[in-house]
């Protein structure tokens, strides 16, 4: 659960329900509405339905493009386009241009919790082995495969639209039950013809930790995991594990 911030700045905690029942989605819509009011209160502009429709259309197109890029580009390159990446303070081992994988080389899907420059550095190292990495999902990256359809005569509020169409598409491991995550994962493995899977698990995250055996069970391809976040620079340790995965994948 999230604790309220103790900083003096005004903050808003958005509650995202764990379940995906109709009532929970309705609740989430109300939370989004509350967020919009708060944004207006701190100086934002009220979102009009027509503006929302326009924005959504733009986002849908952008996400479609991003989804193509996600599958085609090495994960490190794709992720370096994302907002959480800190370009001002790059990790010392980050290269200006990430190494490219080749189509004939093994394809490894990347699942991860959060994204830091350390993750990018690790991915670049993996890609330098000639591996084609495909980013699948991670917590701060919005799902690129999801779209929101706004009909011209739709009765629903924009918040209900987001809640009903967006949230159920998010492959969130912490949802209860998290069936949607596994549907997404198996689809992605098939669609991208992955040879292996690498889970970059955030340290102390119980959700990822406990789902690992299930991911391994259901993936049907070799899976390895590394933990990032407990050491200042754990990439060498992580790379040992990844090399083992690559060897296994190559032997298949």
């Amino acid at each position: 659960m999230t604790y309220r911030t103790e900083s003096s700045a005004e903050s808003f905690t958005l509650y995202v329900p764990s379940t995906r029942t109709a009532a929970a989605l309705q609740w989430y819509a109300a939370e989004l509405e509350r967020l919009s009011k708060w944004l207006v209160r701190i100086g934002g502009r009220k979102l009009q339905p027509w503006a929302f429709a326009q924005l959504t259309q733009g986002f849908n197109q952008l996400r479609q493009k991003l989804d193509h890029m996600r599958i085609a580009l090495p994960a490190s390159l794709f992720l370096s386009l994302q907002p959480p990446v800190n370009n001002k303070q790059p990790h010392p081992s980050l290269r200006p241009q990430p190494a490219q994988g080749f189509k004939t080389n093994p394809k490894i899907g990347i699942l991860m919790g959060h994204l830091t420059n350390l993750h990018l550095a690790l991915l670049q190292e993996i890609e330098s082995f000639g591996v084609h990495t495909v980013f699948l999902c991670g917590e701060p990256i919005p799902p690129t495969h999801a779209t929101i359809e706004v009909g011209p005569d739709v009765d629903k509020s924009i918040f209900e639209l987001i809640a009903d169409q967006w949230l159920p598409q998010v492959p969130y491991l912490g949802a209860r039950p998290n069936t949607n995550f596994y549907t997404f994962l198996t689809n992605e493995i098939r669609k991208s013809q992955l040879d292996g899977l690498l889970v970059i698990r955030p340290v102390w995250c119980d959700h990822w930790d406990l789902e690992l055996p299930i991911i391994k069970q259901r993936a049907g391809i070799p899976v390895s995991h590394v933990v990032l976040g407990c050491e200042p620079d754990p990439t060498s340790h992580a790379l040992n594990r990844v090399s083992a995965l690559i060897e296994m994948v190559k032997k298949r």
Partner: protein
Amino acid sequence: MKFLPTKQIHLEELDALYDLYLREGICFPSYCVPVGSYVEAEGDIRLPNLKFDSSPASIRLWNFLLSENRRLHTARAQGFKIVGTMKDLGTVPILAYAYPNTIAFYPDGTWWTPCVMELSDRLFCLADEHGIGPHLCPVRAMYSAFINKEHFPIPDQIICSTGAVCDDFSAISQRLFHLGYPLRWWEIPPRRPPDPDETKVELPNGTTIPKTHLDFVTHQFHMIAKWIEELHPGIHLTKPALQKSIHRANHVRRLINAIRDITFSAPVPPIPALEELIAEMLVIHFCSDPSECCEVLEALLQTVKARVEAGVTPLDPIPKVRVAVINPPADLRMMNLIEECGLLVCATDYMFTHALIEIPEDMDPFQALATVALCDPMIGHPVDRARHIAKLIKKYQIQAVIVFRIPGASHSAWEGEVIQRFFQESYGIPVLVVEVPTIIDPVEPTLKTQLEALYEIIQT
């Protein structure tokens, strides 16, 4: 028997006393046996390391607690439907007990089994084998109990709360779902104050929340009722049936509150902290038998009243420093140790203070259940828990607060620090935060030193 001994004794002496009570004509219910027999029969080998209250009421209390799994198996054999309720600690069972031939219990309670069986149950080892390691709350023992099926019977239905719950618990519940158990989740949102433009409601504990929270949780209880109805084709829960169940739950709550209040305000404690803890625990699901639960508590209340009237206590020496305790200890022995170090437990928050609040009987029963569910100390900020204890400082003359950290539990990571800061800044009261492992023996000298240091700080 003219004179009932009032003392704290070891298991052997307690069993001898039980025989004496029987010879003297004191009656016990049929399920009662010498408490020591659970060591052999159930493997509860921690019991010889504990100190017990000597009263017949206490013997009955321990028997009621330790015989729960047998009771559940008997109920299953008799055709009762068993509902496993998880995490909300105190509310969903009331709904389940409103249905005929239905028993509800918390499989979460298995978290104490490795302690009571001194790890001989191997529940933690089994959990480790399944990748559920010691970095998680001891509640992971529950997962293993579902696998080896050596403890409670597998429930016909499992209803678990999610949302504002511990990550580790939520992740374990998901693993149970993967195993194919009939698990369903209902959602409890984190408690927050209402925004300026939101309609507010006041909860029975005085907290104000947005009305939307109450409406949402009320809806969740209607949903849960429908799930339970699936076990009883053709039966629809009526409001009077639920009101009756609430009424009975309130009776249990009143009994426990009376025991607590008399015990915490008495100049000398009429019962030890360990028995007080066990009595409190009964509130969450009535130890699978609401009627007997009332009898057990009534007997204990009589003992408490009689001892206060006589001015006697089983504790020798009498602890002097009055402390509040937050979180239940993973090892029951810790409750004895506190008193051995001169600390007297006179306020508690064992994570289910909401289950001690009387449920309003003058409103829609589903909404009434929702109001108390939303008082759950574990769905709010840890400062809410500190404030709850702070309200009792004057009433029970609290001199210090002890926060028991539960190893690996998500909520235990930071709450101790937050609570410590709250009491130090607002009240100048010392707060001791200690991690209590499932078996304290290897660290007992360290814990003892910490507790004694707290005692000395207060005394000087």
